[in-house]
C-alpha cells in the first residue's frame, strides 16, 4: 500500500488525540476516585446508584425521625417517673391522714400538701415535647388537662415512619395514665383525698389510699409501655445507622474506582503519551528523499 505524507500526519494526529483522551479520562478517575461519573460510564451501575441514593436519603431521614420520637418518649417516661414519685408522697399523706391520732388541724395541713401535689401533677400531665403536649393524644395543641382536672385530649396513638414493615406508634397516652379510661381518674381521686382531709374525714382518707394505689399502678403501666417504645425507637435508630453504613459501603463498591488501579493506569498512560510524542516527532522530522 502506498503511504503518503498526509496519511502519516493524520496517523500522528489521531494517535496523539486518542492517547491524550485516554490520559485525561484516567486522570479524572484517579482524582475523583469515581469509576462512574455519568450514566453512560456504566448504565447498570448508574441505575443501582440512583436507587442507593434514594435508600440512603430515606434511611437518614428515618433516623432523624426515630431520634426525635425517642427523645419525646424518653421525656414522657421521665415525666411519668416523677409523677410516680409524687403519687408515692400522696399515698403517704393518705396513710397519715387515716391515722386516728391526728387532729383536724393536722389533717388540714395534709390537705394543703395534697392540693400542692395535685397542682404539681397537673403541671407534669401538661408537659410539652417536640411536637406539642405529650399526654393529649392527637390533640397536641391543647393542654391535656384543664385547671379543673378535666381531660381535654384523646386516646389516639400517633405513629411515625421509621422503616420496617409497620409504622411505629410513639405517643404516650395521658388518657390511660391519668384518667378513668385506664382505670381511675387521678385528679378526681386527689380532689376527694384533699376534701376528705380538709373535712377531717379519717374514713375518706383511708378509702382514698386504695384508689391512689390503683392510680400508681396505672401510671407505672403507662411508664413501662412508653419506656418500651423508647427502647424500640433506639434500636430502630441503631438499625438505621447500620443500614446507612451498609448502603454507603455498597455505594462505594458500585461507583468507586480502585485507587491503586486508577493510579497505575494513569502512570502507564502518561508514559505511553511520552513515548507517542517522541515517536511522532521522529515521524514528522522523518526521512524522506528531499533531505540530502
Amino acid at each position, binding site marked *: 500500500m502506498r503511504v503518503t*505524507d*498526509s496519511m502519516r500526519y493524520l496517523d500522528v494526529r489521531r494517535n496523539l488525540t486518542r492517547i491524550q483522551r485516554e490520559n485525561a479520562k484516567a486522570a479524572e478517575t484517579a482524582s475523583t476516585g469515581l469509576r462512574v461519573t455519568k450514566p*453512560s460510564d456504566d*448504565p447498570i451501575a*448508574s441505575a443501582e446508584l*440512583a*436507587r442507593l441514593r434514594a435508600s440512603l436519603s430515606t434511611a437518614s431521614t428515618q433516623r432523624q425521625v426515630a431520634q426525635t420520637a425517642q427523645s419525646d418518649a424518653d421525656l414522657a417516661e421521665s415525666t411519668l417517673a416523677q409523677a410516680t414519685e409524687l403519687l408515692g408522697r400522696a399515698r403517704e399523706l393518705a396513710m397519715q391522714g387515716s391515722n386516728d391520732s391526728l387532729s383536724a388541724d393536722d389533717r388540714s395541713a395534709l390537705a394543703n400538701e395534697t392540693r400542692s401535689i395535685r397542682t404539681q401533677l397537673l403541671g407534669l400531665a401538661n408537659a410539652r415535647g417536640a411536637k406539642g403536649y405529650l399526654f393529649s393524644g392527637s390533640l397536641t395543641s391543647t393542654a391535656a388537662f384543664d385547671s379543673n382536672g378535666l381531660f381535654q385530649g384523646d386516646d*389516639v396513638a400517633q405513629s*411515625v415512619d421509621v422503616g420496617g414493615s409497620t*409504622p411505629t406508634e410513639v405517643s404516650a397516652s395521658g388518657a390511660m395514665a391519668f384518667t378513668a379510661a385506664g382505670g381511675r381518674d387521678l385528679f378526681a381521686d386527689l380532689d376527694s383525698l384533699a376534701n376528705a382531709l380538709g373535712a377531717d374525714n379519717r374514713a375518706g382518707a383511708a378509702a382514698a389510699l386504695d384508689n391512689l394505689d390503683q392510680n400508681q399502678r396505672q401510671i407505672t403501666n403507662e411508664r413501662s409501655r412508653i419506656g418500651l417504645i423508647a427502647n424500640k425507637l433506639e434500636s430502630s435508630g441503631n438499625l438505621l445507622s447500620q443500614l446507612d453504613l451498609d448502603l454507603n459501603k455498597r455505594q462505594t463498591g458500585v461507583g468507586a474506582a480502585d485507587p491503586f488501579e486508577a493510579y497505575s493506569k494513569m502512570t502507564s498512560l502518561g508514559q505511553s503519551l511520552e513515548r507517542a510524542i517522541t515517536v511522532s516527532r521522529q515521524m514528522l522530522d522523518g526521512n524522506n528523499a528531499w533531505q540530502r
Partner: protein
Amino acid sequence: MAASLTQLLNTARDSLSAQTYGLGVTGQNLANVNTPGYVRREALLETRALGTQTTGSVVANGIRRVTDEFLERRQFESTGLNSAASEHDSRLESLEALFNDVSGTGLGNSLDNLYNSFTQLSANPADPTTRRNVLAAADAFAERSRDTATVIAQSRTDLLKDAQSTTTQINESARAIARLNSQILAAEAQGGDAADLKDQRKQVMLGLASLVDVRTIASGSGIVVQASGTTLVDGVEARQLSIDLDSDGKMRVFAARNDEATPTEVTKFLTGGKLAGIKEARDVDLFETAKKLDEFVFDVATSINQQHQLGFGTDGVDGRDLFDVNTVDAARTVRVSVDVFNRPEAIAASGSATTLPGGSDNAVALSRLSTAPVVFGNSRTAAQSYGDLVGDVGQRKSAAEKMLESREAIAAQLDAMNEAMSGVSLDEEFVNLTKFQRAYEASARVLTTADQLLQELIQRV
C-alpha cells in the same frame, strides 16, 4: 538521411515537450500535496507513430486522475455513517447531563426530599415549619420535573431547526453537483479532461455525504446521486429534500419529484449523514425518554394525590390534591395544586378530622409511598423506576458512543485507503521529478547531437 536527422530533431522536440508536460504534472502534484480532496495526477505519455515510419516520438496524452470509484463510493458511505453516529452521540450528551444526580440537585434527589418531608411530617404534624417544608419539597420536585421536560422539548425544537438548515445545505450541494456535472460534460465535449472540476465535485460529494447518506451511479450525463433512497441529482438536474412533522411531532423527510406535484416521503430510507443522526436523537431517544419521564411524573404525582385526598388538613378539610398534573405532557405541566399552594394548614397529615393537629397516619401513608410500587402500571417503586430511567439514558448514550467508535474506525480506514490510492507522496514525486529531469536532459542532448550532425552535413554540402 536528412529526413532522418530532421526526424530526430522532431523526436527530440516532441520529447522535450512531453517531459516538460510530465514535469508540469509533477509540479502540480507537489503544489497540491496539502490540498484537501486533491487526487494525484499521472501524466500519460504514449509513443506517437509518424505515419508508417519505424521510428516515432512521444506524446503527452493528457493526465489520469488516480482514483478508484469503488473506494470512493465506500468512502461516501462510511463518511455518512460516521457523521450520523457522531451527531447522534453528541446530542445525547445533554440528555445524559439531565439525569446525572451526582451533584445532588437532580430530579431523583428532589423526589427523595419530597418523600423525606412526608416522613418528617409524620413525626411532627402540627409544626408549621415542617408543613411548609412539605410544600417547598413538592414545589421543588414539580420545578425539577418541568425543567427537565422543558430542556428535552427545547432540544427537540433545536434539532428540528438543525435538520431544516441541514436540508437547506443538502439542497445547495445537490445544485452545486448538478452545475459541476454540466460543466464537466461541457469540458469533456471540448476535449479537455476536467480533472479539477472532478476534484471539486468529489469534495462537494464528501460534504454531502456527511449530511445525508449518498450513493453514486456513473451515467452518461455525469453521475447520478441518490440520497435517502431517492434520486437527488440526475445528471444536470437537481431535486429538493424537505422536512415536516407528523401528528406525533416526529420528523418526516420528503423528496420532490419533477413530474409529480406532491413530494414523496422517504423517511424510512434515511440511513446516514447528519440528518439521520438528528432524526435518531430527536425522534427515538429524546422522544422515548420524554414519554417515559411523563409517565413517571404522572404516576408518582397521581399516587401522592390519591393518598393526600384521603387525609385532612389542620382546617379539617379533606379531598385535596397535592399536585395539579395532566395526562398529556405531565412532566412539563406538573405544579403544586392551587388547593394547597402557600397554605401549610392544607397539608393532609391526619387520617381523620377528629385527631387534629397531631394525627400523623396519613403522613405515614404518604411517606410509605416511597416504597410502594405505584409507577408504570403499579409495577415499580418511584426509586426503582427513576433508576430505570437513569440506566436507560446511560444505555442509549453508551451504545451511541460504541457505535461512534466503530464507525470512526471504519471511516478512518477508508479515508486511509483512499489517501493511499489518490494522495500525493513527496518521495514518489521526487523520483518523478528526477525521472522527467533526466529524460529532458537526455532529449536536449539528442537535440544538440542532431544539431551538430546537421551542421556537419551542411558544412560539407
